[in-house]
């Protein structure tokens, strides 16, 4: 058996600019991209090619760093270097800017929706993580500002089912937050990376978290319960993937359908790792299944598994292009 990564499509998404991030909507019918041209584009597969259905260019004054779909798929949030986050409502085939979330002192680096869809998190170079609550009138209110990190916060991601939030930072750490007495508090600090942590991904069960870093490694962290009857949790590093990446690892994606782990690297490569089936969960091992060495012409910034179609992967690059891949096992 041989694992392969076949390139199905490649198209210019943000010409003369960087493509920073791509995100599939929950049914997997649309792909949103954003970039250095300050625009968000919505892509749809028409026949055998990918067509740009919408260009949202009026919302932001500077680079759009990341985008995130709400769990219902009716809203898109965009985080920008202009210090704001826009919420876009999908109205049929169109998008309209519903509201602009302001408050961060400088660049917003990431935005993420909680699984319920009623909470949103943003993080910024101002070192803070903000939690926003959405009410039934589509009003957004900041319910907490957490200043646990000591540096630029790069990424935020929610647990797949619980209201547990994780963040990654230039201070080399990962932090986890829960609500406690109407406030959001840092419940765990994951230390081990020796440089900036760029991105995070939960596994399908939510019991493990993958982090990727400028130190060229990927780490797998596992939740453990230290004391009997004790509600506190701790996270331990159970695996470090080192020696595989030639430069900074900018993104990691853990497929919720297959458990495959994909990485986006500054050496222009896309890699897919598989967990070894018989490994001990407290000391697990992963093997490199596929390496596509020149997947793009420049740094790869993001990898995203399709939410419904197993093995379908999107990637985007500094060269402004998006590629769609099929990861398969060849008999």
């Amino acid at each position, binding site marked *: 058996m041989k694992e392969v990564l076949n390139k199905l499509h490649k198209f210019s998404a943000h010409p003369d600019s*960087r493509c920073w991030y791509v995100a599939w909507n929950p049914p997997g019918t649309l792909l949103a991209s954003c970039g*250095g041209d300050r625009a968000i584009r919505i892509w749809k597969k028409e026949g055998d090619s990918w067509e740009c259905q919408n260009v949202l260019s009026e919302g932001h004054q*500077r*680079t759009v*760093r990341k985008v995130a779909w709400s769990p219902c798929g009716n809203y898109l949030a965009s985080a920008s*270097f202009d210090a704001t986050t826009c919420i876009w409502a999908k109205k049929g085939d169109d998008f309209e800017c519903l509201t602009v979330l302001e408050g961060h002192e*400088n*660049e917003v*680096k990431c935005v993420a929706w909680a699984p319920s869809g009623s909470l949103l998190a943003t993080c910024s*170079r101002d070192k803070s993580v903000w939690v926003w609550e959405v009410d039934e009138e589509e009003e957004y209110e900041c319910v907490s500002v957490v200043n646990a990190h000591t540096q*630029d916060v*790069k990424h935020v991601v929610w647990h797949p089912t619980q209201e547990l939030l994780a963040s990654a930072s*230039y201070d080399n750490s990962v932090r986890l937050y829960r609500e406690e007495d109407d406030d959001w508090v840092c419940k765990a600090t994951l230390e081990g990376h020796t*440089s*900036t942590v760029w991105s995070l991904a939960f596994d399908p069960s939510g019991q493990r978290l993958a982090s990727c870093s*400028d130190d060229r490694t990927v780490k797998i962290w596992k939740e453990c319960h230290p004391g009997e009857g004790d509600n506190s949790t701790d996270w331990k590093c159970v695996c470090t993937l080192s020696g595989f990446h030639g*430069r*900074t690892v900018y993104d990691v994606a853990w497929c919720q359908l297959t458990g495959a782990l994909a990485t986006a690297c*500054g*050496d222009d490569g896309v890699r897919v790792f598989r967990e070894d089936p018989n490994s001990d969960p407290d000391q697990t091992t992963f093997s490199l299944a596929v390496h596509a060495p020149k997947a793009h*012409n*420049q*740094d790869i910034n993001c990898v995203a598994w399709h939410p419904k179609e197993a093995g379908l992967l999107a990637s985007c690059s*500094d*060269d402004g292009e998006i590629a769609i891949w099929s990861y398969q096992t060849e008999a």
Partner: protein
Amino acid sequence: MSGAARLENANPLIFQRSGERCLTAEEEDENVADPIDDREIFDLIRSINDPEHPLSLEELNVVEQVRVRVNDPESTVSVEFTPTIPHCSMATLIGLSIKVKLLRSLPDRFKIDVHITPGTHASEDAVNKQLADKERVAAALENSQLLEVVNQCLSSRT
């Protein structure tokens, strides 16, 4: 303008500039593939202006050809620069100017790494980390005031 009072290093050592590069017959032959070499990279950065002195980075010995390493087949360029004093507050700006000059001049395939010469600056690790973070470099270059200062460093003197 009484600039002298504000200078961090009022009397820097000045070094002689290197001569013009001699072109070989092979380099002038358009039919021969001509990989980018250390000297060509050095020529791109040696005339960058120092942010506070009317001198080039070469004249202040901030950049030297021996601290430039290019690997054309692997598309990598590494430049080490030496701040004139260990507490130079301009170190990040100088490194950013070198990086921007190379980003604008070289083909997109090149990976450009700019570092401080080891042991020559008090905040070496912090400056190196900031220069290596492309997201922060991208954000800095969207700041029009900072971009103007970088462009001044990169403009040729008349």
